[in-house]
């Protein structure tokens, strides 16, 4: 009887502080618990991430490599790829410029309307992308006064490339700014003041002190913005008008040919998007390992709230 009790006690010995447990760290868990937790995480990861990604490539290569390359060298596919790359090439630099400027203004200065600006920056994240797209149609479409005026001057925005770029800019708007605000707040303005006192002008200070201190955050913002701009579907779908070969971006094109039951072509283009996403993730990984400052979006929102308070 006594031995049974002792055995039971031993099973739970990790609960009891004593010499036997000194080697285990305070937060250490038994092997079984650890394995179960890791197992759940891995199973979830496999089921919801690895299997679908593999499926995309499997479907794309279903009818062989020749069919795959034929699918992505279709003129309409090429047009979609070009349009997506063009959109990214415009949206990402503009997002960086805006993000650095907004973060700098918010982190360094006190001004009237700062809280409103902080709230507004988040607006594109808060509204559904479809609504974002509709905003532009309502504002610049043929039935609005502004749209009519633009049309009379021969400028076409909605159902054309400029509309797609605008919608992408709108939905990616907060990304870099939100990455940079907490970093800039954490870095503080003393180094900039030191540079100024040492005789550096504004441009020198920005290039040699401000920017190097936030370079990892800026690059990370660019990577995230790039991912979002490539993959954006909702907002772009509303303003594009789906003119094949003209206003279809890659995600829109994938949807159209998928609905045409052209699975191989659809998954082929989808696999390209997936590849781009994987490259982006890899870049992000290397950027994060290169940076000393932690970059998490929870921190971002906390800091933003702190600034707003």
């Amino acid at each position, binding site marked *: 009887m006594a031995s049974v009790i002792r055995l039971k006690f031993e099973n739970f010995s990790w609960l009891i502080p004593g010499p036997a447990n000194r080697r285990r760290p305070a937060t250490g868990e038994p092997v079984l618990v650890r394995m179960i937790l890791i197992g759940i995480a891995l199973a979830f990861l496999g089921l919801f991430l690895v299997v679908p990604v593999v499926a995309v490539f499997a479907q794309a290569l279903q009818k062989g490599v020749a069919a795959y390359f034929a699918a992505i060298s279709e003129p309409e596919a090429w047009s979609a790829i070009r349009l997506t790359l063009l959109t990214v090439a415009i949206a990402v630099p503009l997002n960086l410029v805006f993000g650095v400027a907004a973060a700098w203004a918010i982190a360094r200065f006190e001004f009237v309307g700062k809280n409103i600006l902080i709230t507004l920056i988040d607006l594109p994240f808060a509204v559904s992308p479809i609504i974002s797209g509709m905003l532009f149609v309502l504002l610049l479409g043929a039935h609005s006064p502004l749209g009519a005026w633009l049309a009379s001057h021969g400028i076409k925005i909605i159902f054309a490339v400029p509309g797609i770029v605008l919608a992408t800019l709108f939905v990616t708007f907060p990304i870099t700014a939100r990455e940079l605000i907490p970093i800039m707040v954490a870095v503080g303005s003393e180094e900039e003041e*030191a540079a100024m006192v040492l005789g*550096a002008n504004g441009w020198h200070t920005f290039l040699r002190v401000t920017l190097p201190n936030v370079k990892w955050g800026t690059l990370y913002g660019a990577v995230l913005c790039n991912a979002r701009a490539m993959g954006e579907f909702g907002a772009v779908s509303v303003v594009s008008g789906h003119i094949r070969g003209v206003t279809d971006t890659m995600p829109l094109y994938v949807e159209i040919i998928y609905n045409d039951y052209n699975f191989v072509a659809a998954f082929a283009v989808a696999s390209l998007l997936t590849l781009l996403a994987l490259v982006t993730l890899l870049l992000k990984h290397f950027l994060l390992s290169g940076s000393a400052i932690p970059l998490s979006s929870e921190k971002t929102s906390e800091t933003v709230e702190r600034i707003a308070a």
Partner: protein
Amino acid sequence: MSIEVRNVRKTFGDFVALEDVSLEIATGELVALLGLSGSGKTTLLRIIAGLEIPDRGTIHFHGEDASGRSARERKVGFVFQHYALFRHMTVFENVAFGLRVQPRKLRRSEREIAARVHDLLKLVQVDFLASRCPSQLSGGQRQRVALARTLAVEPKVLLLDEPFGALDAKVRQELRRWLKRLHDELRITSVFVTHDQEEALELANRVVVMNAGRVEQIGTAEEVYHHPANAFVYNFLGNVNLFHGRVENGKVYLGDTAVEVQDTHERAHLNGNKALVYVRPHFLDIERTPPEGNHCFRATVRNINSAGPQVKVELTAQWGDLVQVEIDHERYQALGLAIGAEVFLRPREKKIFVYQI
């Protein structure tokens, strides 16, 4: 280069950081701005540097109004409390920064810059750290690098914001002595902010005591310590006993005891009723028998701490207030004090300070 601050006022929202401050600093002086946190001393320093813009008032360098000049144009050296070293640059690049951002026609060649940086790093005794990053340095080393960086651009004025505030006591002592020597050598007009009275009194040619946005007193260390302009300065510079007294016929009474006030400047306006009387612990003498003239009061010994260079005795005055007295060990032995002993306390002549209310 001389500095003159004229009628400077600065507010942050509702908070008045500086209220009509005027100050003159002569060429080559080493001046301390001394005060508690929130007294406006750092704000004043930042206004002199051009990092903060005053609501009112002007700053003059060498008699010229510099108020309109930006921090960049003022050519002052500023050392930050937390060093503000450029974290992504090596020590060498930090010190070289000011030389590299000079206008093209004034800029030195790369070889001259390197030579100057190494000279400066030698001057501050950290030349062996040239290729390190700021994060790899200790606090004292960082502050030395920050100083070298500031000196690189040959400022006419050196402003230091709590330069040793973030360092431990021993390093602070060492850097303090070293700064004094450096100032003696270079003779740059220097202003430093501190909340440490010992540091201010030890280092500075003149001390500016600040309180709640105002200058309370300006004077040499000796002047502010031995001839404080008002109760705040006396209270701020060292330990002090505070008594509530009465004033009658030009004499100050503590309880029933008249204490002599010999300072004529003070006695001139002693004709009110109540007075606050300040006495430093070491300006009180303990006697076993009442001395002549009756300028003493009765007290009971409550506690004795004889560890340290002075014996600290805590007593209760006859009217109930706690009194701290410091005497030397010999006097303590001679008196043969014990807890509970009844003694007489006598303020030494001229060493009490009366503030009328």
